[in-house]
Each structure stands twice: as C-alpha cells, then as structure tokens.
C-alpha cells in the first residue's frame, strides 16, 4: 500500500513543490575534488591533529597524570577486571532486552489511551496523562529504590521478592512514560485527514486507529524510540543499587576492593561498544527517512 502523504494540497514532486530543492532531488555535499575542497580537507586534518595533540599534551603533562594513569588506566587491573565485568554485563543485556519489549507494549497502550477521541474517554485520558507526568517527573533511581525495597517489604502473597524482577519493573514504569510520549507525538503527527478518510470508508474509530493511524505513526517514531532505548540500556546500571550484581556493581566491587578506578573505564568501554552502533543506526534511519520524504510523491 502506497503511503499517502498528509499534505495532499501540494503538487507533489512537481516544480511547485517547495520541498524539492531547485536542481533536482538528490543533492549531496561534495567532499572531494576541486582545489578549494582539497585544501579544506588538509585544513581539517591539520586542525584536528593539532587540537587533539594539544589536548593529549595538556593531560599527559599534568602533574597528577602518573597517579591518574595508575588509578584509571591500569593495564594489569584492566586485564583482570574486563572479563569479569563483561560476564556480568550479560545481566544488563537481559534486563534491558526484557524491559524494552515490555516498554514497547505498555507505552503503546498508554499512548492509545491518551489519544482516544470522544468525551467518554476523558477519565482514561486523564489517567494516562497523569501517569506520564508522574513517571517523567521522578528520577529513575528513586523509583528503583522505592519499588525495590518497598514492595517486597509488604510481604504479600504473590508479590515477587526478586531484586531482578523489581529492577525490570521499575525501568518499565519509568521508560514507558517517555516512550508513550514518543508514540503520542507520532500519532499526533499523522494528519487529521487520515482519520477522516478512514472513517469515510466505513472504518470504526478503533479500526482507523489500528489500521490507518498507528502503522504510520509507529514507523515515524522508530528513531526517537531507539534513542530512548539507548537511554534505557545505560540506566540498566542503576539496578546495581538493589543488590543485583550487573556490570556496574561488578566494577564497583573491584574498584572498592582494589582501590582502583580502572574497572569503570573498562565498563564505559563495554557500553560504548554496545551503544555507538545503535546511535549510528538511528542516524542512518533518520537520513533514510529524510530522503524518502524528500522523494515525496515517487512512492
């Protein structure tokens, strides 16, 4: 099914379309070729080398560098701690994978609740709005602490007392509030004419939401969704405060028993290797999305 563009009034892709830059659609910045740009490349290289060279010299020649090197960039400590931390990072991966799936579902539910049209649904809209306000307003660490230590203390039958469970539960509560807002922005970005068209075809309110609005909305918000998930992955370190030995807790254990900060550097490295490819993926998706929109009517 071709995706109809919301702005139906434009003569799409034609000369009158303001979204198409003059001289055709595919315009790329020229990086190489030509004397001027070649000189620019050299200047870029030179200034980069000089900048980072300066930075390195300033750091390495600082009076505290030998101590910092011993405490933060200790090769021996790194070799000993890295495998341990990596093994415990598996726990983080479990936490955020489970949490992400649950957030996807729960946040969509919240967003749909909040986007329900009609005066009958006002209480549901209020509830959903209050929920997102509440959990976007409380620091994640507080939610983790309150749930993780409060809920098991209730001593209720059927309430799990595993730290692992409450860690995931807290992350899902908090991140669903953010992701619900992302979904909602997506839903609202779909032009009202879409609903009108769907309704005029005889679809019910629910059907037009399910088959017309949501598929378009979700597709549009995938990049910001991924951004929130990178945030969630990083926040999985917070569950250490419940006594779950994941990457950060493992790093802290080594740091405090050896009085050395290198394990934190090792953990930072693990996170970087994990999150940067995702960030690049988001960039590429945004770029692809932009190209597709610029191409506009060719769909």
């Amino acid at each position, binding site marked *: 099914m071709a995706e109809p563009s919301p702005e139906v009034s434009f003569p799409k892709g034609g000369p009158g379309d303001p979204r198409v830059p003059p001289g055709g659609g595919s315009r790329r910045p020229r990086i190489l070729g030509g004397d001027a740009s070649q000189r620019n490349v050299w200047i870029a290289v030179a200034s980069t080398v000089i900048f980072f060279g300066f930075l390195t010299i300033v750091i390495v020649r*600082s009076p505290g560098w030998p101590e910092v090197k011993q405490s933060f960039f200790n090769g021996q400590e790194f070799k000993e701690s890295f495998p341990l931390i990596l093994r415990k990072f598996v726990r983080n991966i479990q936490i955020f994978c489970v949490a992400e799936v649950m957030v996807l579902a729960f946040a969509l539910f919240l967003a749909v609740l909040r986007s329900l049209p009609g005066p009958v649904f006002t209480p549901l809209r209020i509830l959903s709005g209050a929920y997102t306000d509440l959990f976007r307003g409380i620091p994640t660490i507080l939610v983790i602490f309150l749930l993780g230590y409060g809920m098991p203390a209730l001593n209720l039958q059927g309430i799990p*007392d*595993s730290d692992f469970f409450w860690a995931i539960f807290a992350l899902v509560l908090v991140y669903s509030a953010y992701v619900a807002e992302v979904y909602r922005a997506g839903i609202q970005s779909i032009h009202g004419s879409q609903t009108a068209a769907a309704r005029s075809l005889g679809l019910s309110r629910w059907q037009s939401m399910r088959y017309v609005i949501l598929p378009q909305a979700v597709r549009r918000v995938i990049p910001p969704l991924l951004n929130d998930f990178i945030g969630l992955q990083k926040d999985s370190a917070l569950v250490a405060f419940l*006594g779950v030995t994941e990457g950060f807790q493992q790093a802290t254990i080594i740091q405090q028993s*050896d009085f*050395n900060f290198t394990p934190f550097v090792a953990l930072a490295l693990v996170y970087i290797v994990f999150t940067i490819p995702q960030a690049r993926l988001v960039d590429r998706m945004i770029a692809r999305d932009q190209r597709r929109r610029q191409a506009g009517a060719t769909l």
Partner: protein
Amino acid sequence: MRRPLLGLAIVALVAAACAPKSATSAASGSPTAQSCAVDSMNLHTPGTLTIATGNPAYLPWYGGKSVAGSDWKSSSYTGDPHTGQGYESAFAYALAQQMGFTKDQVEWLGIPFGKSFAPGPKDFDFAMQQISITPKRAQAVDFSDGYYDVNQALIADNGSPAIGVTTLAGLKDLKLGAPVGTTSLQVIQDVVQPTVEPAVYPDLDTALKDLKNGQIDGVVVDFPDAFYGYADQIVGQFPPIGGQQEQFGLAFEKGNTLVSCVNQAIAALKSNGTLQQLEDTWLQTDPSVPVFS
C-alpha cells in the same frame, strides 16, 4: 586562511585555561626527617587534624547523640564522630591527643567511600572508616599501622536456613549478602566460595533491608557489628582469608609524610594499653560464638 588561524588561537586559549594548577607536591621530604610537632606536621589545614569518614557513621564505631551543627545524624544504629563515643571516634580523639592536638583541633569530614582512595590531593588528612589493609589497596593509598584486628561474622534472622550451620560447607548453598567493596564480601567469595552468587549492596543498610525482607539468608559483617541487633542471631565467625589476620588501617594520600607521625602515636597508644581499653569499652565480643570449620 583567517578562520583556521582563529580556530587554532581558540584551541591554544583553551589549552592555556586547562594548564595545571600550581602543583601541590604532596610527596616531599623524607618521613624520618619529619618532626611530629603540631606546627610542623604535614596537615591539610595547619593546626587542625582533618579526619574523613562515612556519613551515616555506624555503631559501634561511632556513637553518641549528634552535637549541634554536625552533619551526622544519630539514631539507634548510627552516631556522630564529634562525640568521642564509639570505638573509632574515641580512637580518633585519643590519637589526636597523643599527637598534641586538642579536641577542638579535630575536624570531621563526611565522604563517600571512593573519595578515601581517589588519586590526587585530598581535602582531609586521612580516612578512618573501618578500612581493611590489603596489598592491592596499598598500591593506591598509604596505610597507617593497623589499629584494630577484625574478624568477620555471619548474622541471620530466625527461620533462615543459615541458623544452626557450623561449617563453611553448610553455607555454600545459601544466598549471602554483604556491602560492596568490603572484606565481608571477599570472605563470602574466598572463604565460603558459594554456589549461589552473593548479593552485593551499596551499603550495610540496604543489605539489612533485604535480610529483613527475606530475600537473602544472611549478611556478613565485621564481628563487632554483629552485636547491634541488626539481625536475630550471630551464626558464627569466619576464619581469616588466607589465614592472615585482617586489620583496620588509616588511609593516607600516597607519600603523605604524616603517616610516620600517626604510626608513632598508634604505637604509643598500643603500648600504654589505651587501644585495648577502647576496645573493651566500645566493642562487644563473645568468645562463645563458634568459628566456622
């Protein structure tokens, strides 16, 4: 070409702004040549002995009711270092007196544990926080001589499967907990070597909370901590890791010449019986608590 030059000028400016602070070379002078009079000691604040410890500060190491204006809050589990009550607080004031300070010349600073061994200049003279001396740690800080011989003990609530266990083998399948970075945790890992991964907590408080909630079977603590009603029963004491007696030491910035003066004072307090007396006053013990075999 004007732009790149401007850019480089900015880089140079930034670099200049980051220039090293006037180097406060801490490691200067040899300890032997150091005179240990209050005026000539290497102190963070001249004329004042600045001691760092944790906040909250726990019994039996720190006790008494908070004094006015203190950052520490006293409760049934915690105390205020300023009071001179509790083993470490009393030891600190005895040590200061031995070194020639008056009570008013002792300042306390609350720090997170990590600050006691972070590299670089410290904003205190030494940290006193039940820090066990280990060779690895001694690479990052200079330790004073030990001022207390500590053992580790297991506490548990009635109904826990840990109750009645007398052997290390009997502890293997239990879920034990300890605060992060403590030798208590090392005892679980190295002495018990459990089949269940130990639970590690940011501090003793949170570990005890999970114990009360029944999420773990027992908590390993410094032996004197076991007498403070944190749990129903003291299950037993652990033999030391690697057969070596564990000791608490004061942690100094590497190369701080103050260590030798402090060591002199500790030696004096040991030989005149003050340390033993403080132990008898502030630290409960119970020789009938069995050692796990």
